[in-house]
């Protein structure tokens, strides 16, 4: 957490700001540039008006993660969480006012928010994975000591294969989604023709025909 809040000194100034943008310099252990909301850091992080926040210098430099990645991973995750919460509360408000389906600005906002879940997840993932460096298991095993004997070229090749296959999935998915969107909401079937869903199989006439087949097969 020392890296996630963007402070370098062992203890921040009092009251501490809440940084949104920083330009950290890992070598000199300081921020070249920092922009934040004054006092909010003390209130959010220490729950008092004048609290001081711990900085990354509490950890020896050879055991520090890279501040920028941790900081922005956390900001992306947390920032999107705030936006999501805003979307949820405003939707409740609009629903209460019976304007949920007619408020254009809100619907446009929702379109923009579509990928927010995955982006926030990625941000959190970067926070966790870069924040625990240089440890693979905190305090016990350094990442550099846990490297597998598989040659780097092989790993690179399989990583490329992995990216290619998942890019293919993504392309197919987007193609498919685009087609549905182009078709528009009015033409969508309640139950797609062949949806891959097995719910239908539980309907009595399907089960009956299957059982009839089974009897005939004997």
């Amino acid at each position, binding site marked *: 957490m020392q890296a996630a809040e963007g402070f370098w000194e062992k203890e921040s100034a009092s009251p501490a700001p809440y940084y949104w943008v920083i330009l950290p310099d890992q070598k000199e252990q300081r921020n070249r540039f920092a922009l934040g909301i004054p006092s909010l850091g003390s209130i959010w992080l220490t729950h008092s008006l004048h609290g001081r926040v711990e900085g990354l210098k509490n950890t020896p430099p050879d055991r520090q993660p890279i501040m920028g990645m941790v900081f922005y991973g956390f900001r992306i995750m947390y920032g999107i969480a705030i936006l999501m919460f805003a979307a949820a509360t405003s939707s409740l408000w609009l629903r209460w006012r019976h304007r949920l389906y007619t408020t254009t600005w809100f619907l446009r906002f929702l379109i923009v928010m579509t990928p927010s879940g995955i982006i926030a997840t990625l941000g959190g993932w970067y926070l966790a994975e870069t924040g625990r460096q240089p440890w693979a298991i905190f305090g016990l095993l350094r990442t550099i000591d846990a490297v*597998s*004997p*598989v*040659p780097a070229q*092989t790993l690179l090749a*399989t990583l490329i*294969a*992995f990216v290619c*296959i998942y890019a293919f*999935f993504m392309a*197919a998915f987007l193609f*498919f989604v685009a087609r549905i969107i182009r078709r528009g909401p009015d033409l969508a079937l309640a*139950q*797609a*023709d*062949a*949806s*891959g*869903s*097995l719910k*239908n*199989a*539980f309907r009595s*006439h*399907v089960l009956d*025909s*299957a*059982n009839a*087949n*089974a*009897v*005939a*097969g*004997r």
Partner: protein
Amino acid sequence: MDLPLLSAGFAALSVALYVLLDGFDLGVGALLLLQPHEKSRNHMVDSITPTWDGNETWLIMTGVTLLAAFPVAYGILMPALYIPIIAMLLALGLRGVTFEFRAQMKPYRRRWDVVFAIGSIVAACMQGLILGALIEGVSIDGATFSGSVFDCFHPLPLLCALCVLEGYVVLGGCWLHFKTSALLHGFSVRTLRIALPLFLLTFFVVAGLALLVQPGIRVAWQTHPLLLGTVGCTLLIAAFILFNSIGKRPDVRPLAAGMVMIASGIAGLAILVFPMVVPFRVSIWNASSSRLSQIFLLTGAIVVTPVVLGYSFLAYWVFRGKTPEKGWDG
């Protein structure tokens, strides 16, 4: 109590169940390539849709057991078998996604079916490659892998890949023989008549080659001649029954015989390899984790196994009998 032995037993059970269950649906997937009629292909996919993902649970069980109970073996085998394992997982992923896309994109179904078949074939071949590499023996130095990641592309593993693919196709054919009617039933009969002899031929070549390459197998035959002889005979008798029941009633007999055939193959392998967890290199006890990890794993296994068996059984029960030709959407 001998906990590592219990864990090894659980791992062996997972592998066996995985091969027997996922084997036939990978086989059906591979057979899609040979089926020119889209209707029949839909029917084939419908026959495995309810159960394929449940079947693959056992692969995950095997991996988890290996990691939790035999970390040393996991540490040796993962790098040694890195290429086939990654390729297998990617192929299984490809296949899993195709299940959904082929249903949704009717105009492109033919192409998705090709992807589906390729995914199935690659997954099956990679499993064969893994098996072959294990039989040949991975190079180790102490408790770490010391060979090359390309060691698994030797002749024996490559032949093994072909053998496993053919074995799965046989199982897939048996499954279609059991679950389908009319045209597709005829297709399964033709498939089995060709695939079974091919499988047996490859199997004997692999067995002969393995005997030459791996001295551990000769030793095992000298220690348990009777046991291995019995298992071998069971395999042959099952194959014989399978071949004679193709196209005849009851439709389930080829599948039953096929399962017995493959199961005795697995049992034979288990006897050959026992008590090693990295075959012919590291024993179960030398590779096992602490007692506490073993207890943790086995507790989980005791809880989870009945659940998985339960839902698998439920799926097979609900979708028992012949797969309706109109599919499950009917």
